[in-house]
């Protein structure tokens, strides 16, 4: 009977595990012949799933395309970014299959593998739609351009370097030598070069990737994927191939290094405010801050109310918090490739027309509607707290509360410093509180593509709108963030949902007493039994 049970356990465990496994991005069989019937089958798939972004003519001009950055691929040029073919060449069928199956994370292009999503496309439907997409670019019909027939494939070599400290260190040297930092920045935060006033092959602004944010790496975060990116280059963009500049070995080291700088997210949603002696340090590089535990918060575009924004710049903010007997200090750090300290109020967007019922669209276009350039809008960040003390799990809405349940914002702007403000819902902008109610102070610095902001405040104040930091209380906190050179201001911003801060209450004495009592009772019982058995 036990044997059968074991069998059941093993079967169920295997079943549970198989669900986690990632769907196949390699086809089970090669692409069928591209007959007119097969292409027609692909056309039907395309009309149902693809044309709204990529357009009926495959020119990347579907109705949703203006709002997306990166913009949907224009298939008519035959220029594809993610391939296993050499720089500048057409992709292979399998390359297209991989992209359709896996999708490109953090873009509008998502996975279509029916092993990944329930209503995805079967392998044959994926092949069919690829056959249809290829008809948009005449280059695919010319055998002279076929990367396979012409021996233009970049193969993944077998001699992969082990992922260890030594090879990562070598990779860091190659990052210097190959001048990756010229564009991607010394820390890989995409802050090396201001490139968004230059355009790619499709005429769109170039935005250099922040290599430390793994969810932004579009064609895979495995070391093998990273290796392929700088071996094949990214067609249509300034990202070159390093196939002749670097040896295979060097490219493996570099891939290991890039992998090593990718940020690993913390997974908790409560941040413990830690007790220190003396003043809250004013420098972000102070050892006290380095020792404090971090909490990562994911932000996303403000898509809840018009004007909606789906191309946010600030997607990760890391918090640390310290307190002494009088004050609390919060260190807020986030990546922002360019420092924007100027704010031109006249350049702000008036959302009146796009906010109406039945307007063409309530989203902001990726280009042209707002200036995504330097010297227009200030970088800014706000910490949001409930005004009313929290009762149970009931809180104000994470998006600026409401008239009956307002929120307080600790609003810092690179252009004008920090102020406490009250928001009663998103429809009206937050109102700064009177000067005598202001009790926060802030120090901000920007270095190598990252802002560090330290906000301090007395633990307890006499303003009834202020959150009070007393031990043992969960304090909800949410974030708003703006990257000025990404065009962000007003509701065109990124935001988070609620997280929590807490000052730990000291453990009550009764806990130790109960534990001790348990030990004594169970211990006493054990020895009493022993006595009884020995004497009986």
């Amino acid at each position: 009977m036990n044997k059968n049970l074991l069998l059941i356990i093993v079967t169920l465990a295997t079943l549970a595990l198989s669900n986690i496994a990632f769907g196949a991005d390699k086809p089970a069989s090669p692409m069928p012949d591209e007959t007119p019937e097969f292409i027609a089958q692909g056309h039907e798939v395309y009309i149902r799933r693809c044309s709204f972004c990529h357009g009926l003519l495959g020119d990347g001009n579907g109705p949703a395309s203006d709002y997306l950055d990166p913009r949907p691929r224009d298939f008519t040029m035959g220029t594809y970014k993610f391939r296993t073919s050499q720089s500048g060449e057409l992709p292979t069928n399998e390359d297209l299959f991989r992209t359709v199956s896996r999708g490109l994370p953090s873009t509008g292009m998502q996975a279509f593998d029916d092993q990944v999503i329930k209503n995805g496309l079967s392998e044959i439907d994926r092949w069919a739609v690829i056959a249809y997409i290829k008809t948009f670019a005449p280059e695919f019909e010319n055998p002279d351009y076929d990367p396979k027939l012409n021996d233009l494939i970049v193969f993944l070599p077998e001699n992969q370097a082990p992922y260890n400290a030594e090879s990562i260190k070598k990779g860091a040297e190659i990052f210097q030598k190959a001048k990756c930092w010229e564009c991607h920045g010394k820390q890989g935060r995409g802050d090396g070069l201001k490139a968004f006033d230059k355009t790619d092959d499709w005429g769109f602004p170039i935005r250099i990737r922040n290599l430390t944010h793994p969810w932004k790496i579009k064609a895979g975060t495995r070391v093998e994927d990273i290796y392929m990116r700088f071996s094949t280059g990214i067609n249509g963009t300034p990202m070159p191939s390093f196939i002749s500049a670097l040896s295979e070995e060097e490219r493996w080291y570099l891939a290991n290094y890039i992998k090593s700088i990718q940020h690993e997210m913390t997974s908790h949603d409560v941040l413990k405010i830690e007790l220190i002696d003396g003043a809250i340090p004013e420098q972000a590089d102070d050892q006290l801050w380095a020792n404090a535990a971090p909490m990562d918060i994911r932000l996303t575009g403000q898509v809840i109310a018009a004007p909606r924004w789906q191309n946010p710049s600030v997607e990760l903010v890391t918090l640390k918090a310290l307190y002494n007997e009088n004050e609390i200090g919060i260190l807020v750090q986030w990546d922002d490739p360019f420092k924007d300290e100027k704010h031109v109020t006249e350049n702000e967007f008036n959302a009146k027309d796009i906010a109406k019922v039945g307007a063409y669209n309530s989203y902001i276009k990726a280009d042209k509607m707002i200036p995504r350039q330097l010297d227009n809008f200030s970088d800014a960040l706000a910490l949001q707290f409930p005004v009313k003390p929290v009762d149970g799990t009931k809180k104000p809405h994470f998006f600026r509360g409401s008239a009956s349940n307002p929120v307080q914002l600790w609003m810092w702007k690179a252009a004008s410093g920090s102020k406490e403000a009250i928001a009663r819902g998103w429809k009206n902008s937050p109102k700064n509180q009177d000067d005598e109610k202001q009790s926060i102070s802030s120090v901000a610095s920007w270095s190598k593509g990252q802002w560090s902001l330290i906000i301090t405040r007395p633990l307890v104040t006499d303003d009834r709108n202020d959150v009070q930091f007393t031990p043992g209380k969960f304090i909800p906190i949410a974030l708003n963030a703006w990257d000025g050179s990404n065009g962000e201001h007003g509701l065109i911003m990124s935001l988070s949902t609620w997280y929590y801060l807490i000052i730990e209450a000291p453990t009550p004495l009764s806990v130790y007493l109960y534990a001790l009592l348990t030990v004594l009772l169970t211990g006493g019982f054990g020895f009493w039994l022993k006595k009884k058995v020995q004497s009986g």
Partner: protein
Amino acid sequence: MFKMKINRFWSMILTVFVVYLFVKIIIPAVSREITGLPFPLTVPGALVFIYMLLAIISIFLYVTFSDDILEEFLDPIKKFLRGDYGSTFRTVVLCGLPLFIGWQVYEVLVPKNELPSSLRIQHPSSNFPKSSEDLKNPFADPTDAEVNAFIEQAKANQVPFIPQLEADIGFWAEENSDSHMLSFIATKPMKEFLNEMKAEQINEETAKNALVEKNLFEGRALYAMNCRPCHGDSVSGDGPMADGFKLRPINFTDNGTIETIVEGYTFWRVANGGRGLPVEATPWDSAMPQWKLNLTEEQRWKIILAEYDLAEKTPRIPEVHK
């Protein structure tokens, strides 16, 4: 045949362990298979306690059922207490076990930085207006007059589309001036309709299906423009904006989401968003917009039509009240 006989004491310990394993690991794993949700449903702590208590009571009943069994069960314990397994071992266990239990008590009692979990009701109905319950999607079932008007438009090769699609369809029609303007919708119902029109033998049912196909096409475009950033281009709740919300956008392909509610409910939720939810559904955590502020009723119904179609689900049929 070789058969290993294990002492009842150890088989009882094993039983408790297996029950614990079942409750803690197997039930959540199976729940995942059954619900199709991307996360397991764990058994609540109070329930685990009850299950384990029941298991121990049953073992107690079984063990005390006859003197023989009790004897066999108590035998290893007695041997242990007498020191048959070594007196050092006995001292270690007799001291270690109380310390372990004391540590467990401390763990249970010590205050933790864990939030009290909040139960959330996904489809609250406390403030759902009864009048919405019987609403039907007008674009899923067009009237005869609408179908006839559509046939006339198709014959004149001038079928109006929503403004969001005008540019894309316009460029396509320019490139394909020799085809009928509707032929870009390369799906079966539309092809059938266009063939019948060519043969001048239009069946009203075919025309109706073609009109629904046109409505679907518009709905998909509006979905891609408005909802896709969060709910994803395959309605799987995995859009590029989804990762920033702790309460993730709903995956409409999951069982137990849009197929368990009537269309009128979907319409009401899309109109009023997270802020329109009652307290038991934690409205402060929901990012769902109040779409009545930006989308017309027509736009919302077309989106809902496309949403059910993409998810390969059908809405629940309203109950008949007599």
